[in-house]
């Protein structure tokens, strides 16, 4: 499975650069092109400012968790990374975000292509009112990534990747709404993976799932790196500790602190972070 995912072009470029990079001498952090590089990012809707001054690099092939209390702007930030906020009336943005070295908000950057390269999984499973098979290949068909004859095998491969194939192989033509919540979320993951994204954004993907399904989804996410870059918003600090290589703490529309997950939880540098991770608020 990992080798299949390893064909993501953006990540591959980044990894190759990472191998070739160190000779040039700059510090290790800039030896690769970050999957995302944010400089002074601010986001607002109309008169309301939601985020200010976010500086953040997200390394390719890692899991980054965005944590913080409700309303801190972490979901807004996530939705800025695949340009989903473009469609919200009054959306404004400052600063620069680059996706593997390219300006995400450049005039010549097609948002449709951005969203193919940067997949997303939502809080609630949102399968389309189509058959299970059509759900998986919806993105593949929209982006014309494969000829008609290969669609069946793409469905099978994607469903196997998420471990759903055995459960649904005999009813690919039927409705996804008869599946359990966890299975629906896995189906949505299969749908997101079928278009071979470089990055996967997850917005509290397990908050509506039971513990067993949550564990299944988490195991799966761990197995997708380093072929895939994952950015996950979560309210569940334990989940951030289990999954993330790095954790970013947002509070009040600012990025307060970022660091290795263990470091951020054991030894937070900021007072606010310390209060949050120790459960004193949020």
């Amino acid at each position, binding site marked *: 499975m990992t080798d299949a995912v390893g064909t993501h072009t953006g990540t591959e470029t980044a990894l190759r650069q990472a191998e070739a990079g160190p000779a040039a001498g700059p510090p290790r952090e800039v030896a690769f092109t970050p999957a995302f590089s944010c400089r002074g990012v601010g986001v607002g809707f109309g008169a309301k400012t939601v985020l200010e001054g976010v500086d953040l690099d997200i390394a390719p092939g890692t899991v980054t968790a965005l944590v913080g209390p409700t309303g801190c702007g972490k979901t807004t930030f996530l939705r800025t990374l*695949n340009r*989903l906020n473009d*469609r919200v009336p009054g959306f404004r943005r400052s600063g620069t975000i680059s996706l593997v070295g390219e300006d995400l908000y450049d005039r010549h950057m097609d*948002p*449709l*292509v*951005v*969203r*193919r390269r940067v*997949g*997303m999984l*939502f*809080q*609630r499973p*949102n*399968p*389309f*009112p*189509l*058959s299970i098979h*059509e759900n998986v290949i*919806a*993105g593949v068909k*929209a*982006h014309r990534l494969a000829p008609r004859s290969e669609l069946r095998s793409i469905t099978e491969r994607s469903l196997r990747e998420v471990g759903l194939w055995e459960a649904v192989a005999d009813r690919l*033509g*039927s*409705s996804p*709404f*008869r599946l359990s919540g966890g299975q629906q979320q896995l189906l*949505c993951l299969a*749908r*997101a993976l079928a*278009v071979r994204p470089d990055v996967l954004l997850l917005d509290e993907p397990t908050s509506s799932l039971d513990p067993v399904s949550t564990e299944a989804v988490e195991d799966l996410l761990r197995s997708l790196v380093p072929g895939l870059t994952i950015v996950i918003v979560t309210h569940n600090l334990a989940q951030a500790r289990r999954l993330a290589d790095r954790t970013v703490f947002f509070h009040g529309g600012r990025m307060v602190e970022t660091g290795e997950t263990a470091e951020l939880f054991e030894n937070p540098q900021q007072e606010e972070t310390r209060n949050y991770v120790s459960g004193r608020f949020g």
Partner: protein
Amino acid sequence: MTVPVASPGRPVPPAPDGRGPSGPRWDAAPGVIRPRHDTEGMVRWGTRLAALLPGAALVGLAVALLIEALPAIRGNGFGFFTRTTWDPGNFYNPPVVVNGVARPDGASYGAFPLIVGTLASSTIAMVIAVPVAFGTAMIVVHKLPRRLSNTVGMLLEMLAGIPSVVFGLWAALTLGPFLAHHVSPFISRTMPDVPVLRFFKGPVGSGEGLLTSGLVLAVMVVPIIASTTRDLLRQVPRGTQEGAVALGMTDLEVVRSVSIPWVRTGVIGACVLGLGRALGETMAVAMASGTVLGTVPRNVYSTFGSMAGVIVSQLDSALTDATGFAVETLAYLGLVLLAMSLLANIGARLLVRRASTTALPVGRGI
């Protein structure tokens, strides 16, 4: 059903142990409280009755129409569906008896041109109305700002409430002549002489006819389909649409893979409601069709008669038929119209069942 209501004068019954009244009791409170189990029973029977009424009305209507039409069914036979004549016969000669049913001398009825006219005008109406209604609903839901969208919705509902005779007047006095002078000649000239499109060629007449009727029916049907479709589109979950956007789909692809599948069954239901309206619409078509009897329409500009329109325009003269055969024949025509509407409804239900293999969690529509 007897309802034992406690009346002011009713003596309070003794307690079971025979020691006389023991404090206030609910079933003995003077004239105020009705025993609970009794209201319960009334509600149960009342709701059952209410549930039965629509079915009873449909069956009663069909049976009454059938009884009235029975002599005409025997007298006209199945040739009723293939003949093109519509001749009430000579009321001054002695009546003749055919197939055991008395009728005026020379009377001969055939509904074929009326069936063709009804189906053709309704088809034209649906072909125009369905895409227009769907487009209107899409724009109202997705493109217009909230306040404007509400206004347009209100206008749509007002359009649905306009009396059909007003539409008929408009069609006969304004739309028909306009088409005949400015639109139809052009279409007639430019249409290629190939199958189907051939129906758009030929003499354009004076404005009364299939095209005018179809257009006015479309205007009447659009609000029915559009307002239902709008309500259904508003139910499509935001999260599902956003999922499609996040996958990199264009607006049109989102509509195709999320919105349309989500509303499909309901929209089919709405279309059948619209078709039912078009098939049965009487006044507007009677005024816009030219109401001719006994001629099959040759092109889309031909005057024609619809089943409903002929029933209303011929009833007066039919009542002067002493044998009653003319009225019975109109009842027969009404029965056929009823059957056609029911068939359209049942057909749509089958279609909906086939289309809804993808079960939705909510919003099955009609």
